[in-house]
C-alpha cells in the first residue's frame, strides 16, 4: 500500500523498517524544499509583473529621478539572483521589506493581523472536526436511513453554497433573532484587551483570567467560523462516511462480529480510528487553504485579519506585502501538514513499523 502525501509517497508495503526519526527528517527537508520553491516562484512572479515597484511606491506624480533613487534604495539595480538571496536572507530573519503603500514594515503589519485569522481558522477547524466526524459516523452507521439522507443533504448544501452567502445569512439571522449579538469585528473593543502572550484572544483572555473578553471574543467568533466551516463540514462528513462504509465490509469487522463484540464498540472504537485517517489527511490541506481563503468571511464580518490584508495588497499591487502573505500562508500549509503527518503516524502503526510479509 502506498499513501500519497505532499512530500512524496511513503511505502507502507513489505518494505524495510521505517525509522520515525528518518521519516521526520525527510519531512523537514521536504518542508525546506517547498519553502524554497515557493519563495523562488513568488519572487520571480513579483519581478516579471509589469509595473515598477518604485514607481508604485512613489505614485504617478514623482519625477523619474526620485524613482531612480528609490530603485537604488530598494536594491532593484542589483542582479536578480542577488536580490533573491538578499530577500531570502532577510525573510528568514522576519524582514519582508516595507509596504509600498503604507511604508510600514510588512512583518509588523502581518504580526498585527495574523492572530485574528489564526484564531478564526483554528476555531473553524475544531468546529469542522467536532461536527463532521460524528456526522460522518452516524450517516455511515445508519446508511440509507433518514439520518443519512439529512446528513447527506447538509453536506451537499455545505459544499455547494459559497461561504459569503452563509456569512450574510448568518448575519441576517443574528440581526433578526438575537438583537444584541455582535455581528461585526473581532471583539468588543471598548473592553481592555489582554496583552499577549499569543495574540489569540480566547487563549490570552483565559491566561489573564478575563472572562468578559473571552465571552465577547467567543460571541464574535461563532458566526464567522460557522460560515467558514460549512464547506469543510460537508467535505469531511462525506469522506468520513465513505471511509466508514468502506471499512465496514472488511474481514476484521466480521471477526469481531462473529465473537459478539457489540456493534457500538466496533463502530466507535475500531472503525472510527481506522476511518479517521483519510479525513485527517484532508484536514491538513483544509487548514492551510482556510488561511488563504478566509478573506470572504473576514470582509463580511469586518474581521480585519491576515487573509483580507492579502487581498488588499493584491488589489493595491503592494508587492512586498503580497510576497510576504504568500510565504506566510505557505509556511502554515507546510506546518499543518507536518502536524498531520505526526498525528497519522501516532494513529497508524503501519507508518511506523515495517509490514511483515
Amino acid at each position, binding site marked *: 500500500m502506498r499513501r500519497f502525501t505532499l512530500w512524496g509517497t511513503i511505502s507502507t508495503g513489505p518494505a524495510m523498517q521505517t525509522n520515525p526519526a528518518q521519516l521526520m527528517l525527510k519531512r523537514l527537508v521536504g518542508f525546506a524544499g517547498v519553502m524554497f520553491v515557493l519563495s523562488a516562484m513568488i519572487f520571480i512572479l513579483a519581478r516579471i509583473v509589469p509595473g515598477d515597484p518604485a514607481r508604485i511606491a512613489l505614485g504617478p506624480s514623482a519625477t523619474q529621478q526620485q524613482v531612480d533613487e528609490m530603485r537604488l534604495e530598494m536594491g532593484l539595480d542589483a542582479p536578480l539572483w542577488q536580490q533573491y538571496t538578499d530577500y531570502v536572507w532577510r525573510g528568514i530573519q522576519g524582514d519582508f521589506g516595507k509596504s509600498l503603500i503604507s511604508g510600514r514594515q510588512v512583518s509588523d503589519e502581518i504580526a498585527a493581523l495574523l492572530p485574528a485569522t489564526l484564531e478564526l481558522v483554528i476555531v473553524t477547524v475544531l468546529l469542522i472536526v467536532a461536527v463532521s466526524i460524528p456526522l460522518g459516523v452516524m450517516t455511515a452507521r445508519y446508511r440509507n436511513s433518514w439520518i443519512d439522507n439529512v446528513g447527506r443533504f447538509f453536506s451537499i448544501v455545505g459544499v455547494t453554497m459559497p461561504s459569503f452567502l452563509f456569512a450574510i445569512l448568518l448575519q441576517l439571522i443574528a440581526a433578526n433573532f438575537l438583537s444584541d449579538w455582535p455581528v461585526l469585528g473581532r471583539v468588543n473593543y471598548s473592553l481592555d484587551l489582554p496583552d499577549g502572550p499569543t495574540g489569540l484572544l480566547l487563549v490570552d483572555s483565559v491566561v489573564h483570567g478575563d472572562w468578559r473578553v473571552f465571552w465577547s471574543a467567543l460571541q464574535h467568533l461563532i458566526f464567522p467560523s460557522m460560515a467558514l466551516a460549512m464547506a469543510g463540514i460537508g467535505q469531511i462528513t462525506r469522506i468520513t462516511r465513505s471511509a466508514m462504509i468502506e471499512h465496514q465490509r472488511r474481514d476484521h469487522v*466480521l471477526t469481531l462480529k462473529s465473537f459478539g463484540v457489540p456493534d457500538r464498540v466496533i463502530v466507535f472504537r475500531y472503525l472510527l480510528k*481506522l476511518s479517521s485517517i483519510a479525513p485527517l489527511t484532508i484536514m491538513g490541506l483544509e487548514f492551510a487553504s482556510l488561511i488563504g481563503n478566509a478573506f470572504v468571511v473576514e470582509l463580511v464580518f469586518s474581521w480585519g485579519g491576515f487573509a483580507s490584508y492579502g487581498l488588499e495588497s493584491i488589489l493595491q499591487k503592494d508587492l512586498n506585502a503580497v510576497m510576504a502573505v504568500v510565504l506566510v500562508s505557505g509556511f502554515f500549509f507546510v506546518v499543518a501538514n507536518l502536524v498531520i503527518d505526526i498525528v497519522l503516524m501516532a494513529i497508524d502503526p503501519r507508518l511506523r*513499523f515495517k509490514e*511483515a510479509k
Partner: protein
Amino acid sequence: MTNLLDIQNLNVSFRTYGIRNNVLKDVGLKIPEGGRVALIGETGSGKSVTSKTILGTLPDNAVVESGTIRFDGEDVLTLSQGKREAMKGTAFSIIMQDPLSSFNPVFRIGRHLDDVLRFSDRRLGETSNSRDRRRRIEQVLRQVQLSDPARIFDAYPSQLSGGMRQRVLIALALLHQPRLLIADEPGTALDVTTQDEIMKLINSLVSDNGLSLLMITHNLGVVRKMADDIYVMRHGEIVEHGPLKTIFRTPQQAYTKALIAAIPPLYGPGVEDQKAVDAEPIVSLSNVSKSFDEKLLFGRGRSHLAVKDVSLQVSKGEIFGLAGESGSGKTTVARMIMGLIRPTAGSITVDGDTVGEKGRGPDFRELIQIVYQNPGTSLNPKRTVGQTLSVPLRFAGLRADAVEKRIHELLAHVELQPHYISKYPHELSGGQKQRVAIARALAANPKIIVLDEPTSALDVSVQKNVIDLLQKLRDDLGLTFLFISHDLSLMRNFCSHIAIMLRGEVVESGEPRQVFADPQHPYTRALIAAVPVMSDEEDRLKPQTSIEERRRYLADTAV
C-alpha cells in the same frame, strides 16, 4: 452418540433489490459430539453462508426461510437475540479464513483479544478485570504454540507473520473453550508448510480439548487429515455425504468424482511425467542477484538481498517451474527476466539478447508476456473482452480489421465462443476470466509466457481445465512457459523442469521425477512433506523430514 449440531431442512435466501435468490436449499448436516465434519465445495456453493447461519452473522439482506439448527438439542434460530449473542465465541466459535485481513491494522493484537474476552464475559454475567483477562489470554496464546505471548499481545497485526496471525485467530476462537469449532478454510492464504503446521495444531487442539469441528474447505487433501465425515455441497445443496473413507473410495455423484479426480497426484501411478526438453536455452541467468536498498536521505540504508546468485537455464519449449514460498524471490526472478527490474549483479539472456542492454523495446515486449495470478483484478472491469484484447494488438501496429480478426483467433485459441468479445469481466466465471488473461498474453505472439500462479485463485476443477488449455497452447504454438507456483502437486504433473527457491537462492533444480523421488535439499523434503495429498500411499512415498530440519528452514514452525 448424540449430535452436538443438527441442521435440518435449512433454507436461506438473499434479497437484493426485491429479487429472492435461494442460496441454501434444504441443507441437512449433523456433527456428533467430538466429531470432525468437513463441508466441501467450490466457490459460491454456500459453505460460508452455512457457517454464518450457524453463527448468526448473516448480512442484513439474508433471510432464513425455514429449517432448524439444533445445538445441543436447542433450536438456535428460535432463541432470543440476547441468548444468541451469548453463544458467540462461547458455545461455538469460528476460526477466520484470512489471517492477513482479519485484524484491524491500527489496533494491537491484545486489544482485539481483550475486547472479545471482555464482552463475552459480560454476556455470560461474569466480571473480570484486565489483569486477569490478560493472564487468561496469554495462557491461550501459549496453547496455540506462540512462545512469547507478552510480545504478541503488544504487537500490531502488521508486526506478525501470517502464520502467527493465524495462530492468534485460533486463540481468539478458543478464549472461552467453545464446544464447536468452525474452521473456515484456515491457512489457505498461507504457504503450504505453514498451512500444514496450522492443520496439525487445530487437530491436536480438537482432540486434546474434546471439541467438535466443522471444517469448511475446498482442499480435499486437507479434508483427509482433518475430518471423519464429509458433506459435499454444490449450488446450495448437499449432494453427497458420508464417512471420509467411503466418499474418497467410492464417490457416488459425478460432481464428487470430478472434484476428486481434479486433484493432481503427488506420487503413484496417476502422476504424469512431462517429457524432458532437450533444446537450446531461450532464457539463461548467470549469477544473478538483486538487492533492494532502503532509500535514506543521506547515503544508503539497509539493503535486502531478494535474489542471491541465481543461475538457471530455460530451454525452448520447456515448462519451467519455479517453486518456493512467499518471499523466496521467485517473483523477483520473473520480473527480472521480463526486464521490469534490473539485476544488481549477473546477466540475463533472453532469446540471444542480454536483457537491459537495449531497454524494453517493442521487440522485447513481444517476446515475453505474463499471466497474473488473479484474473479478477488483472482485467479492467470497465472494458469488454474485445477492448481488453485490442490494446496489445494496437500496440503491435495492427489495423482495425486485422485486430478484429486476430481477436477471434485468440478467443479460439483459449476455447471461448466468439460472442464473448462483447462481455464484461463480471459476466465471466473465474476460469473464463483467466482464459481471457491468457489470450491477452498471447496477443503479442510471444515466445515465452510467465505464468504467475495462474490457477491459485481458481477452483480445482477449473484449474484442471486451464492447465489442460495451457498444455495444448504450448504444443500448438511452441511456447515456453515459466511457471511460478507454490502448488507442488500441480508442478509435479505440469512442469518439465523444476527449481526450488529458498530465501533468494535456488536450492534444488532438476526434472520433477527426480526431484520428487529423491529430494536432496532438506528444505525440498520439508516442502514436499507438507503438501496435503489424497491417499495414505502417497503419504508413505513422501520424503521423511526431521523436526530439526523443519525448524531450520520453516519460519513458522513453532513447536
